């Protein structure tokens, strides 16, 4: 799975946003985790937009009404590429609600529990543009963007990538 990533407001991410036609700067955020707040780029018939969004597609109000959280019943921060065409959750959004998630790097861990090694994986050149899907949830007029990152099987022979690495 793709479980953590980061965004650093540096020239690489600025270049990516420029290519995407976004006249804004990204906000530096380290260790973005499922349920946390990332930034996504999506497009409507009118424009492309960079917005804050919750990393998990299915979300709900927090019980104390202080915001929103991922649905505790489903894990929706990753969407396996192999299930995009079959899962009702992903299928409709694959057709018209695709997003790009700008990133500087992501993380994978190796080793046993208690002795895990964290790796920072980034592109040798430029920033990373993750493919994702999004939804704009309407909670009684409060429009809340949420997203998932699409994952692919790891490359054969890889000792770093987990079975559903960010791709």
């Amino acid at each position: 799975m793709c479980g953590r990533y980061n965004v650093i407001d540096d020239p690489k991410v600025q270049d990516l946003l420029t290519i995407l036609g976004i006249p804004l700067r990204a906000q530096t955020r380290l260790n973005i985790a499922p349920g946390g707040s990332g930034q996504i780029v999506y497009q409507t018939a009118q424009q492309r937009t960079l917005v804050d969004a919750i990393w998990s597609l299915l979300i709900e109000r927090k019980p104390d009404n202080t915001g929103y959280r991922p649905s505790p019943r489903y894990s929706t921060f990753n969407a396996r590429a192999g299930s995009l065409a079959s899962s009702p959750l992903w299928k409709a959004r694959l057709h018209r609600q695709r997003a790009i998630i700008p990133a500087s790097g992501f993380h994978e861990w190796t080793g046993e529990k208690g002795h895990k090694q964290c790796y920072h994986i980034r592109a040798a050149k430029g920033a990373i543009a993750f493919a994702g899907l999004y939804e704009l949830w309407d909670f009684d007029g409060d429009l809340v963007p949420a997203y998932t990152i699409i994952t692919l099987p790891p490359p054969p022979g890889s000792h770093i990538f987990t079975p559903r690495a960010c791709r």
Partner: protein
Amino acid sequence: MLSPEDFDRWLDPQLTNTDPLQHLFETRIRQPLLVEPVRSPLNLEPVGAIEEIAADNQ
């Protein structure tokens, strides 16, 4: 990970036939990657050498 040449098609909400996007769902390293062991994702402090993973051939 998407390449710049994929951006417009991927974001286009009018493109509802996803056949032109299917190649993006194949496992392939599209660009060289740097893998660096770090102490924590909170500070990205390096603790070892960087390994480069080459991109797959087109």
